[in-house]
C-alpha cells in the first residue's frame, strides 16, 4: 500500500514538472506580452501604462483593466507596412521550406538507404554544424558572400563571371542562409520516416508491376508524409519569425516580421506595438500547428 501511494506521488510529480515548465516559461511570458500589447506607450520606466500593481487594491485593479485597450492592434491594421511584413515573412518561409524539402528529401532517402553501420555516422555529419554557434555560421556566410569573398573569388577564377557579383543584402542570400541553417531540421524528421519504410513494400510494389519512379509517388511519399509534415512545420514556423538571417544577410527591403518587431521594440521603444506584433504572429502560426497536432493524434489512435 505504502509503495502504491509512493508511486502515485512520483507519477504526479513527473506530470507536474512539464506543466510547471510550460507555465513558467510559456504561459506567464505570453500573458505578460499579451498584457503589454493591450497597454499604451509612455515615456516612463517601464515604457508603457498601465502598470500592474497588486498593492493598489480593488479600485486600482478596476482602473488597471479600464486602461487596457486594443489601440496597438488597430495601429497594426492601419499601417500597410505590418501586413506587408507578415506576408513577406510567410512568403520567405514557404519558399524556403519548399526548397528545403526538395534538397533534404534525397539526402534523407540516401541516409535511410545507406548501409546500417554507416547511418549513425552520416546522421552525425548532418547534425555536425550544430556544434558551431548559429551566429558564427551566419557570419561565416557574410564572409563567403561579400564583395571580395570566397564565392566571388571562385566564380572569377573559373571565369563564370567577369566582375564580382553582389550577393550580400539580397533575397538570394537570405534564402541561402535560411536553407543552410534549417537543413538538419528538415533532414532528420524525413530520415526518421524513411528509415522506418519497409523495403519489402518497395519490392511488393515492383512485384505488382509498378516501376520505381511510380513506386516513389505511390508508396514512398505517402508513407513518409508524417516526416514531410513534421519537417515542414519544424522549418516553416521558426522561419516566419526569423530575425538574425534576414538582418545579417538581407537588404533593408527584406524586412521580415522579426526585424519589424525588433525595430519597434529597440528602435522605437514601442513595447505595446512590438507585443501586438508578436501576438498576431502567434495567431497566424497556431492554426498550422493545431492541424498538425490533430493529424498526429488521429494517426496515434489509428495505430492502436
Amino acid at each position, binding site marked *: 500500500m505504502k509503495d502504491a501511494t509512493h508511486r502515485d506521488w512520483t507519477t504526479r510529480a513527473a506530470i507536474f514538472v512539464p506543466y510547471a515548465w510550460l507555465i513558467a516559461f510559456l504561459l506567464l511570458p505570453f500573458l505578460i506580452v499579451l498584457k503589454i500589447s493591450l497597454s499604451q506607450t509612455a515615456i516612463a520606466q517601464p515604457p508603457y501604462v498601465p502598470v500592474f500593481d497588486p498593492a493598489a487594491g480593488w479600485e486600482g485593479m478596476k482602473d488597471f483593466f479600464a486602461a487596457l485597450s486594443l489601440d496597438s492592434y488597430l495601429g497594426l491594421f492601419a499601417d500597410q507596412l505590418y501586413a506587408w511584413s507578415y506576408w513577406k515573412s510567410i512568403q520567405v518561409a514557404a519558399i524556403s521550406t519548399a526548397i528545403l524539402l526538395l534538397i533534404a528529401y534525397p539526402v534523407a532517402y540516401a541516409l535511410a538507404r545507406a548501409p546500417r553501420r554507416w547511418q549513425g555516422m552520416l546522421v552525425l555529419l548532418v547534425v555536425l554544424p550544430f556544434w558551431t554557434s548559429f551566429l558564427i555560421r551566419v557570419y561565416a556566410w557574410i564572409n563567403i558572400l561579400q564583395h571580395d569573398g570566397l564565392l566571388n573569388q571562385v566564380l572569377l577564377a573559373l571565369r563564370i563571371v567577369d566582375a564580382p557579383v553582389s550577393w550580400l543584402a539580397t533575397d538570394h542570400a537570405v534564402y541561402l542562409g535560411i536553407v543552410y541553417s534549417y537543413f538538419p531540421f528538415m533532414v532528420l524528421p524525413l530520415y526518421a520516416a524513411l528509415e522506418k519504410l519497409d523495403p*519489402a513494400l518497395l519490392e*511488393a510494389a515492383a512485384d505488382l508491376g*509498378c516501376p520505381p519512379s*511510380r513506386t516513389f509517388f505511390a508508396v514512398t511519399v505517402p508513407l513518409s508524409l508524417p516526416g514531410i509534415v513534421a519537417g515542414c512545420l519544424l522549418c516553416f514556423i521558426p522561419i516566419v519569425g526569423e530575425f538574425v538571417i534576414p538582418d545579417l544577410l538581407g537588404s533593408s527591403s527584406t524586412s521580415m516580421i522579426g526585424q519589424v518587431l525588433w525595430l519597434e521594440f529597440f528602435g522605437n521603444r514601442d513595447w505595446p506595438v512590438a507585443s501586438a506584433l508578436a501576438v498576431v504572429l502567434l495567431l497566424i502560426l497556431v492554426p498550422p500547428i493545431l492541424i498538425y497536432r490533430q493529424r498526429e493524434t488521429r494517426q496515434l489512435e*489509428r495505430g492502436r
Partner: protein
Amino acid sequence: MAVLVSFDQVTKRFGDFTAVDGLSLDIHEREFFALLGPSGCGKTTLLRMLAGFEAPDGGRVTLAGQDLAGIPPYRRPVNMMFQSYALFPHMTVAGNVAFGLKQDGLARDEIAARVDEMLGLVQLRPLAARKPDQLSGGQRQRVALARSLAKRPKVLLLDEPLAALDRKLREETRFELKELQRRLATTFVIVTHDQDEAMSIADRIGVMNRGCLAQVGTPAEIYERPASRWVAGFVGDVNLIEGRVTAVYPSFVMVDRVGMRLRVAHAPVAPGPIAVALRPEKIRVSHAVPDGAFENGAAGTVADIGYLGTLSLYKVRLDDGLVLKAAVMNEQRAERPIHVNERVWLSWTPDAAVLLME
C-alpha cells in the same frame, strides 16, 4: 506435364557466401511445388531470383521458355506473397488488392470487379474498406494472398506464407491454399522450412541444403526413399544405423553390424560401409521374440517412453549402445503395457529400411 519454370545451373553469391550453387530444377505447369530446407539453405534466394529481386551470378532462369535475365520484377508475369505480407499500410484492403491491377491500366469497373472477385475468394468482402492495421494476422495473410493472385500470375510465389500464423490457423490455411491452387489451376511455388507444411501441401518437394538440391520428389518419395542421410534426417524422424554391406542378392542386400543383421530390399550395391534409415513408425515393439529375429530384429532396454495420445514413442537402447526410436500406434489398450527398463524386441520388415548411399 509441361515445364513452366526452369533453373539451369543457377548460382548466386553474396560476397563470400554462395547462397545458390549451380542448381538446376524444373517446375511444371499447375504444380504445387515446395522448396524445403533449413534457414540459409538458399530457398528464398531461389524464389527471389524468379521474382526478379536478385540476379543470378551464373546460369539461367526461364519462364515458359523465355529467359528472364534482365527483365525487372515489374515486367515479370509472376507475383509474390511476402513473408511479412508487405501490405501497403496507407491503402485499404481493396486498395491493396487493386494496386497491381491499376499498374496494368485496367478500366475502373474491371478493377472493381476483379477486386471483388479476389476478396470473395479469400472471404474478405466485408473488410474491403479496412486498413491493414485494423486486421488480424490471419486476415492480413488473406489480403496478401488476394493481392498476389489479383493479376492472375503465371506463377504464384509464396515466401513462408504461413510462418506468421499461429499453429491452428496455419494448419487450416494449408488446406485452403491447396484447395485454392487446385481451383485456380495456377503454378504455386512455396518456400518453407516447415516439413509438415511442405508434405501436406505440395505435389512435389525440392529439399535444399547449402545452396544445392538434396532431393526432388513427391512427399511420399522423399519420406519413404530419402536420397541421403541428410534428407532422411531433415524430413521426419529417422533412425540411422551404420553397418557394412556383407552380402548382395538380386533383390536385397544384407547389412551387418555388431549384434544385428539387416535384410534391406534394394538393388545390388558394392560391399562396404553404409547407413540404413529406419523410420520409427515402421518398427514394432514386443515382449516376445519375433519370428526370424536373427534378421531385422534387435533386443534392447526401454530407456524412455513418450505418450503422445495417438501414438507412443519408445526409445530403446540396444545392447551395443545404439538407441532406436520406435513409434507405435495406440490402437488398443495393451494387455501388458511396456514399461521403462523392460527388455523388449524391436522388429521390422525388409522393405521398411532404406539404404542411404551418401
